[in-house]
């Protein structure tokens, strides 16, 4: 029961909004640099460079080139609020066309563009109303033209009020994993309760109805957990290949797993018990259930999740890295914010589809 609770909490955590005392953007001063790149902002086009603002050491970011853009996906949700106060301090030449773009849901399409006027380190501010529900907003700052544009501060926070009378920005139907109130909110046309989270969570947009069983998808497919699309949304529920998931991958039903065993939302090699009195337990938190994990009893060729499971000390398979909520990741940017706006950790936990050497 405890294991189930952990899983539920872990997955449910992804459905909570993430702000830092109301602030929704990380590194508002463009001060976090990882070498010559911004740590928290993604360069979409062109190039960026460090530039002094009021003080040489309080650096801002200069958008370099005729066409340059940076963006950041803010993990704010409509649960946090639907009115966002946005402030920007910039030094923008007359012949630089600087725009602030908003991509509600972070699905890649800009839903609003605001042209920033030329200014000499003067604060600009906007109140933006966002149509609920939504999960995540991607802010994009772009520059076109030969003029110089240096951004010194960007500040976005949830505003309790101040958006009265403003037409809400409609991000369109939500993608898979996004929150919804009805089928019309979803691009898939399906809004269903998320079977991975039972308590206190809202319905999610899904690609298939898991309640329909085998009839939800076509031949050779099952309604299960797909690959994560965004750190600010839940894992998508969609039609996935039957028996296509290896040992250690997340699953919704046993039909997704090559082992035909989906135990505690992970493709496993056992369910309750193993032969010879060996225990059947998860190899890591939110991981696959295997026999006698970490005891080095598995013989060559037997399924395993970590090297410690094998008598040989080597478990061959693809390295498995996961976020705290169990979803696979390649780097911390793939993980939901764990505390405030700081990305969660992406940790190596074992292997998928492993067999002992």
């Amino acid at each position, binding site marked *: 029961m405890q294991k189930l609770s952990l899983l539920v909490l872990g997955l449910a955590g992804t459905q909570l909004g993430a702000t*830092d005392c109301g602030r929704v953007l*990380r*590194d*508002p*001063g463009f*001060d*976090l640099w990882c070498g010559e790149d911004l740590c928290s902002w993604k360069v979409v086009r062109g190039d960026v460079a460090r530039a*002094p*603002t*009021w*003080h*040489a*050491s*309080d650096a801002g970011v200069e958008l370099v080139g005729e066409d340059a853009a940076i963006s950041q996906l803010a993990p704010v949700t409509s649960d946090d609020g639907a009115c966002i106060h946005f402030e920007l*301090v910039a030094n923008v030449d007359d012949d630089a066309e600087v725009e602030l773009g908003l991509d509600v849901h972070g699905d890649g399409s800009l839903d609003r563009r605001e042209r920033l006027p030329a200014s000499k*380190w*003067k*604060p600009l501010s906007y109140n933006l109303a966002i149509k609920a529900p939504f999960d995540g907003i991607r802010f994009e700052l772009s520059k076109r033209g030969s003029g110089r544009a240096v951004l*010194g*501060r960007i*500040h976005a926070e949830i505003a309790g009020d101040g958006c009265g009378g403003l037409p809400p920005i409609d991000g369109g139907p939500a993608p898979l994993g996004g929150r919804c109130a009805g089928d019309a909110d979803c691009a898939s046309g399906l809004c269903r309760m998320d079977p991975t989270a039972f308590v206190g969570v809202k319905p999610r947009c899904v690609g298939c109805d898991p309640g329909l069983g085998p009839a939800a998808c076509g031949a050779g497919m099952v309604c299960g957990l797909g690959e994560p699309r965004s750190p600010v949304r839940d894992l998508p529920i969609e039609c996935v290949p039957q028996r296509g998931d290896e040992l250690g991958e997340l699953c919704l039903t046993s039909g997704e797993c090559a082992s035909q065993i989906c135990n505690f939302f992970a493709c496993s090699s056992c369910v309750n018990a193993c032969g010879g009195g060996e225990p059947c337990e998860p190899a890591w938190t939110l991981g696959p259930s295997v026999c006698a994990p970490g005891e080095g009893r598995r013989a060559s060729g037997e399924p395993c999740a970590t090297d410690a499971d094998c008598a040989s000390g080597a478990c061959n398979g693809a390295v498995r890295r996961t976020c705290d909520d169990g979803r696979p990741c390649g780097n911390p940017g793939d993980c939901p914010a764990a505390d*405030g*706006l*700081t990305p969660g950790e992406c940790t190596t936990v074992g292997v998928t589809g492993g067999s002992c050497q």
Partner: protein
Amino acid sequence: MTQNRVPTIRGVACHEAKAMRLPLLLPILAWALLGDAPPAGADTPPAIASYALVVGSNLPGPGQAGLRYAEDDARRVGATLAEIGGYAAGAIDVLVRPTPDALRQRLDQLTRRVTADAAAGKQARVLFYYSGHARSTAIDLGPAALPLEELRQRLLAVPATLKVVVLDACQSGAFSRVKGATPAADFSFNSRQHLDASGVAVLASSSGSELSQESELLRGSYFTHHLLVGLRGAGDANRDGAVSVDEAYRYAYHHTLVATAVTAVGGQHVSLEVELKGHGEVPLSYPRAATSSIELPAQLAGYALIQDRQAKAVVAELQKARGAPARVAVAPGEYDVLVRTGEQVARCPITAGPGGATVDLGRCTIEAVAAAAQKGAGAAFAPRWRVELSGALERERRDAYRATLVDTFDYREDGGLTAEASLGVLREYGHRGLWLGGFAAQAASPTYIFDAGEQPLRFRWQTTRVGALAQGEHRLGHTLTAFARGAAALGIGWTRFVDQGGAVTREVFAGPAVELGAGLRLENLWRHGLGMSFGGSFEYAPILENELGERHDSGGVRFRYGLSYTW
């Protein structure tokens, strides 16, 4: 039989003066009640009961300026009497800054003591000394006054055989006029067993219409200073080891008049009125009985000045003639004896211990007159010095620099107040209340923090100003002085920026700084020279500059509080 032994000097315009404080000083009120004769010879203290009530008050009366040295004069008189006046321990009552009621109580107390002595068949002599403000009808003890007529009646009521009243106050000669004393008879003492003279002698620092004056150089009034010098032995004309009322008067009269003749107010004429019966001189001091003294050898000639080396105060000054030694009673200690002859000054260090000491001419160093004068021997004006420590708390001035920091780039102030400390040293120039000097001030801003997320950005600065300071002062009362000041300085600013990675960036700036201010100073609060000031100032110090070319005036309006010591 009464007889006017010394001519009374009345109606002469009062002396010298410090132009700035006109009602100035009230010199001495000396009212001596002559009682018994000295017991065992003129140079030894009498065995009769002797009492002294010594009063000093710097407090001004209505429309008067505060005095600086009246209370110090009283203390010096008390000390001199204790040393060489022939008074028993506990018989000298020094009363500083009393109210009229407090003075009445002490006079009553004195009357009771003398009455008890009289009941026991013991004669008594009483000396009353007052230094402070006075008018022709009253002595001023701050806002309240004690009428001269009442003072006279109370002193007359003291049943002492001999009473001496010394008044160091403006128009103190009026005391005799109020008293209505007639010229005293000739008197002399010829008995060592009891007082042969009886009655009253009044020694006043100025005539009934004159002003009495203080001297910055002497750090006391002219009259009391010369009176004390005379009592220490310089006034012992007949060299009998005791200084009589007559001798003290003659010495004080001559030297006070000479010293004040060159002042702005003009010559100050000491007056003496006596109403005495009997015969014999009335000694006021017994310098030969002093525990220590300085003797100027017979071969020494010139204008001699004895200066306390530690206190930098003139103890005595006299015209020494060749041929006979001169002896001045002093407290044990280190002294410099300066003797001027022509264009040279001989500086002779001497240690006066028990039994006294004689100036050793072989140890004297010869200096030019100018050099000696710079050391205070002959300067007409002794400038005062002041060191002042002040502090201020203020909000940083809101200008473009700070607006960029706080409003544009979203830094918040941690604490919100800038603290400043300033140390200044000033020297007084002339008597017009002008002080010039230098100062150094250090101010530290609050820390400005930008909450950037994981680690905040931190920024703060310090400024140092070093420059010249000019201050004008106007005395409003005894302890209260108003001042206005202006300063110009070079300002240096240091900024410190800490980024999210903890890296520190420091920058240095420089710029001009000016200041205008005004305030009030309370002086001589806990002890002489200590003062406390408060006021406001406006400072303009555009020292810091940011990358946008905006300069920060790290000044603004400041409220200052300070402590000072003046010497």
